[in-house]
């Protein structure tokens, strides 16, 4: 049975919890290890936090994805917020000091296998990350 898309609207701090729990449920259904499921849930938590902190609202989309002969999970975090002016800077470690309301993007990149960011100042940001099953 194919697994459909899951969409979680991010409007409040409670939605961060919902999004990361949905991520863990999907990762577990896809038979990810508990370490990888925790990595995925943690990455979702940070991405949802960025949406709330920088754009105020947005969405987390989750679904299963397939590579050449592997299975994985795709997480897309999107918002229509102010966008990121300097993406290389946002991807540099230490840019977000101690991660208070920091972007945490370098950490998310380390937690996941694939990382893609698209942002237009004034138009919004979309971060797509994938984790492959080992």
């Amino acid at each position, binding site marked *: 049975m194919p697994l459909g898309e899951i969409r979680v609207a991010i409007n409040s*701090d*409670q939605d*961060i*919890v919902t999004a*990361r*729990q949905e991520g*863990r449920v999907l990762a577990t259904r896809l038979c990810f290890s*508990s*370490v990888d*499921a*925790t*990595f995925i*849930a*943690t990455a979702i*938590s*940070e991405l949802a*936090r960025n949406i709330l902190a920088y754009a105020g609202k947005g969405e987390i989309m989750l679904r299963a994805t397939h590579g050449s002969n592997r299975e994985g999970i795709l997480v897309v975090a999107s918002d229509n917020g102010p966008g990121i002016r300097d993406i290389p800077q946002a991807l540099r*470690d230490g840019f*977000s000091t*101690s*991660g*208070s309301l*920091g972007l*945490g993007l*370098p*950490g*998310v990149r*380390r*937690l996941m296998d694939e990382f893609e960011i698209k942002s237009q100042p004034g138009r919004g940001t979309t971060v797509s990350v994938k984790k492959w099953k080992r």
Partner: protein
Amino acid sequence: MEVPILKQGEFLIAMFQAALSDADLENLRQGLLQKVVKFRARGVIVDVTAMDVMDSFASRTLREIAHMIRLRGAETVIVGIQPEVAFAMVQLGLTLEGVSTALDLEEGLAYLIEKSKMTD
């Protein structure tokens, strides 16, 4: 979801649930500080065994709790960080610098008792 805070002698024990929101964490920070003052607690154990994810906000709040309580003259120890949660924290670049940690509730209590003996 409120975090229950139990009193055990001169120590306080806070038990985290899996699904704590940012607001819950902020309430815990407030509640713990109030109870430390009210009970003149010497130490606090924060048990995060049930916590599913420790992201930047949660670890920052824990650090703040520990530092505030230290300013009150009491000790804080975080217990029960799950192995996969610890792994994810390291990947994310999160540290709990300056915060004591222990394996579980029992070791956390032993640590606090040892600490309070030293200051007696």
